[in-house]
């Protein structure tokens, strides 16, 4: 399957799972609303240009916004994620500029376990902080804000772990990590 077709199928899958399954989950607690759709942005290949990344991020966020009826909310959070992804990759993989130009995508195999975990956790935390900050801008309670960011991030990371194990099982760990 060619790369664009694969990406479009993956995009549709992520948005539909988020909009039709995760958003309909009965709330375990008012803090916990798990998000998974932004994993699509994390899994994009290394060699997507930064402007391309921003546009894809905007479209991904806006597609979900149409379902949740919050035009701009998820788009804004995804834009931050898309904007910070490339600098973060360069920061985490300093000597490997050549690899960043290939078509492979961030994974345990291509980045090493610790680096990949750090990469995902940081992007998730940033995405959620911005999302919750915007959502609760009018609410005001700081403790509430921190709590919601923390628990939502935990729930999302758990989902990402499940998605990793389901779709990209670790066959061979990188030797020099």
């Amino acid at each position: 399957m060619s790369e664009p077709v694969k990406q479009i199928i993956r995009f549709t899958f992520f948005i539909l799972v988020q909009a039709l399954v995760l958003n309909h989950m009965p709330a375990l607690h008012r803090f916990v609303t798990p998000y998974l759709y932004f994993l699509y942005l994390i899994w994009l290949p290394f060699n997507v240009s930064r402007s391309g990344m921003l546009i894809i991020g905007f479209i991904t966020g806006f597609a979900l916004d149409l379902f949740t009826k919050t035009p701009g909310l998820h788009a804004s959070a995804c834009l931050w994620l898309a904007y910070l992804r490339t600098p973060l990759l360069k920061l985490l993989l300093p000597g490997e500029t050549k690899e960043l130009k290939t078509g492979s995508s961030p994974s345990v195999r291509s980045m090493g376990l610790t680096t990949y975990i750090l990469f995902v956790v940081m992007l998730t935390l940033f995405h959620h902080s911005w999302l919750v900050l915007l959502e609760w801008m009018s609410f005001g309670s700081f403790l509430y804000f921190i709590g919601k960011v923390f628990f939502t991030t935990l729930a999302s990371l758990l989902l990402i772990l499940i998605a990793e194990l389901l779709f990209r099982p670790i066959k061979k760990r990188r030797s020099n990590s």
Partner: protein
Amino acid sequence: MRNFFLLLRRLQVFLLFLLLQVISIALLVSYNKSHQAKYMEWAYDATGSINKRYSNIAAYFSLADNNKRLAEENNRLRNLLAENFTSIDTSATLRLDTAMVDSSRVIRKYLWRTAAVINNSVASQNNFITIERGRLQGIAPEMAVVSAGGIVGVVTDVSDNMAIVRSLLHRKSITSVMLKNGRNTGLLEWDGKNPGLLQLKGIPKSTALKVGDTVLTSNISLNYPAGLMVGTIAKVEKETDGNNYKLQVKPGNNFYSVDYVDVIENLFLKEQRDIEQRINKQQQQ
């Protein structure tokens, strides 16, 4: 000039980011203000068709619950039928009057339409419900939405075949309600915390009430007919300052599973608005 373009080129990613970010925040802010946007209309239709397919499947899982609820409502309505009531006086006989047309005939004030719920949220701060009936089926903004258990919300936006309902679980939702005992009116709001509890304000502390009392829609509400079930008082918090209670109300409607709702149109709404506006204008002059 050349340097300026070089600078733009160097900053192009950042500028694109800034531009898109400004667009999304502007969209969010403008939509939060009004909850109506022309460009969202096609989105309601597009996401609506996907949501409809999904809810067609999901509906099978709640069939038993729905049946039970409908049976209960049927039971309640049957109990209201005229045949259930009889006059104690045995000498009175029921006679059919030939002149059935009453000169003081009644005029319809509220028109009810059923609608299927195809999307529903409870987890966010501002929750909306999508129903599959829109402008072409006679739905317009500001119509009231109720289900068998109690009131649900108010229509805020319509497209051709879909309508968006602002649920009671919305931080800007304010409903005029009254206590069944005593008929004191207050305002029902939601603080965005627990989907199982709404807040009722404006009931003076002199009112006699207890946990479990019924809350109904008030007779001064523009959208809702008076006396519809809203919920029951779950907790009474006496605010230390001020002379009003702060009541926690458990909604009669289960917001986690709304499947079918009735949309109520107040046919006098425009007339009432007009006459009230006229009075306001006269007083300003």
